[in-house]
């Protein structure tokens, strides 16, 4: 249920950022969300519609890109991508690893705006 606080934070950040482009309309907000970020896209989308009303983000689309977990595997000497989040082992050599290189992201990547005139 913290999706609403997350969306409110998105609205604040984007509103601040578009202030530099007077008269601009926000068309799209793109997020990068790690598979371990414990955020549910459906809930985000649901809150987004409500929380953006009467803000510069009203009517914009929210695009969520989910990033898989990437671990560094010491024995293989490389970063490896996990298919899920049920086992933190290297898919190549099966060695467990806690050296997380990606998967906890929760960030606004970019926004697409339409400038008038």
């Amino acid at each position: 249920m913290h999706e609403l606080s997350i969306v409110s934070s998105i609205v604040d950040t984007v509103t601040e950022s578009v202030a530099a482009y007077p008269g601009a309309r926000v068309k799209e907000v793109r997020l990068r969300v790690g598979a371990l970020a414990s955020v549910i896209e459906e809930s985000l989308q649901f809150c987004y519609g409500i929380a953006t009303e009467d803000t510069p983000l009203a009517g914009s689309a929210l695009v969520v890109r989910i990033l898989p977990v990437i671990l560094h595997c010491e024995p293989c000497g490389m970063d490896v991508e996990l298919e899920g989040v049920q086992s933190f082992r290297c898919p190549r050599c099966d060695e467990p690893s806690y050296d997380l290189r990606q998967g906890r992201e929760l960030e606004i990547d970019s926004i697409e705006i339409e400038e008038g005139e």
Partner: protein
Amino acid sequence: MTTRIVELRRGILKKNDELAAGLRERYGAAGVLVLNLVSSPGTGKTAFLERTLTALKARGARVAALVGDLETDNDARRLAASGAPVRQINTHGICHLDAEMIAKHLEGWELGELDYLFIENVGNLVCPSSYDLGEKIRVALLSVTEGEDKPLKYPTLFNSADAAVITKMDIAEPCGFDRAEALKNINEIRPGIRIFETSAKTGAGMDAWLDYLAEERAVL
């Protein structure tokens, strides 16, 4: 009309992360070991913490606790019986504690006069995982009544934990608790994590936990 892409690359919880980083710095400078206790409602965080506070005080340590709940100060009153300073944080519907609430409730406390500060989070295995409170150690608790697959169901919390505590070990047998399976699942999600099997009722496993706290406090 021109369309423009503006790169932001900004963490959504940046405000919380910055506040938490400030808290972490304060805790470090004060030499206080801060722990964030996270579990489902009913795991026994409060009973475990009552026992921990009382035992640490008996060992001569200076301890304090912040406890989060949606409503009521019942847990703060229970914990205060240990003689430690305790403050209740009522979130009024918010499902987690955040760094701002912690900063606000620390006002007036001299952190330099503490060895340990425990933060008992709101009972919830999902949302607290996203909010850094500046803690040194995040503790994920799991009771024997909850099912051995809880770590698999809530990987975000268990993966981000520094230590895991299994509570209510005194009733493990009647609950049909499969200890090996639980340990395996915790390790699958968070390889190498320290696991403590405890009972706040009988005191079993508490010594290992208290020794761990002392070790962590010593290397601050």
